[in-house]
């Protein structure tokens, strides 16, 4: 599924990497637990999370996750943006809840990892 389509489905805004809106994401994973994210064994994945701090970006860097969608109106800070930019990531923000967001994406056919 294209980033652009994910953005539309979840009423999100792209706050980093908007030039990659045509990129395709294979599957998605939702968690607020960075410990979980670090056990993922899959590239090209979208992380949907309510945990919005520098560690989210660091964790994504190590886990090779390039696409992150922050839910519940969480706002990305400037140091997060900087690190995300350095690592060529796409960051999106939506005001919707985690439940609403993953529901929209799942029913539109974005596959879960597991």
């Amino acid at each position: 599924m294209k980033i652009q389509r994910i953005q539309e489905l979840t009423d999100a805004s792209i706050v980093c990497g908007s030039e990659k809106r045509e990129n395709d994401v294979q599957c998605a994973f939702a968690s607020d637990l960075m410990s979980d994210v670090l056990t993922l064994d899959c590239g090209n994945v979208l992380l949907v999370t309510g945990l919005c701090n520098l560690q989210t970006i660091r964790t994504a860097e190590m886990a090779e996750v390039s696409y992150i969608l922050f839910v519940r109106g969480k706002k990305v800070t400037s140091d997060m943006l900087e690190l995300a930019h350095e690592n060529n990531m796409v960051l999106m923000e939506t005001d919707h809840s985690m439940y609403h967001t993953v529901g929209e994406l799942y029913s539109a056919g974005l596959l879960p990892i597991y």
Partner: protein
Amino acid sequence: MLFKFELEGGNFSKVGYASSQIKKVLKQLAIDPRIIKRVVVALYEAEVNVVAHAWRGTVVAKLDADKISLELKDEGPGIPDIPLAMSEGYSTASEAVREMGFGAGMGLPNMKKNVDELTIESQVDVGTTVRMVTWFNKKGA
């Protein structure tokens, strides 16, 4: 090549710096990306453990032609029961650590899964030393 980094207990802003630097070096050396991911995930988990559970520590990464050896040595409360700490889901992480998205008790098992050799030495109220070795010629376990 030898790399050294410092870690400070409770200071989450620095955690991941060592992993990030090592990742860049391994990439430059054109190591298999799957091996790079396994090494940096394990190193990052170990860095987070020092910051989350100990008072201060150092990361030493030694790079040889055929392997990378990582040593994380900390001053801290130590681990009284290492097999228990190694079991999935066991965690003594504080509320503050949980708020950072950690403390699921998955770190040590995940480190074990991602490296070729893991050894832990610990003395209660003194500190913990974690050593990890990964060979570059071995393809994913």
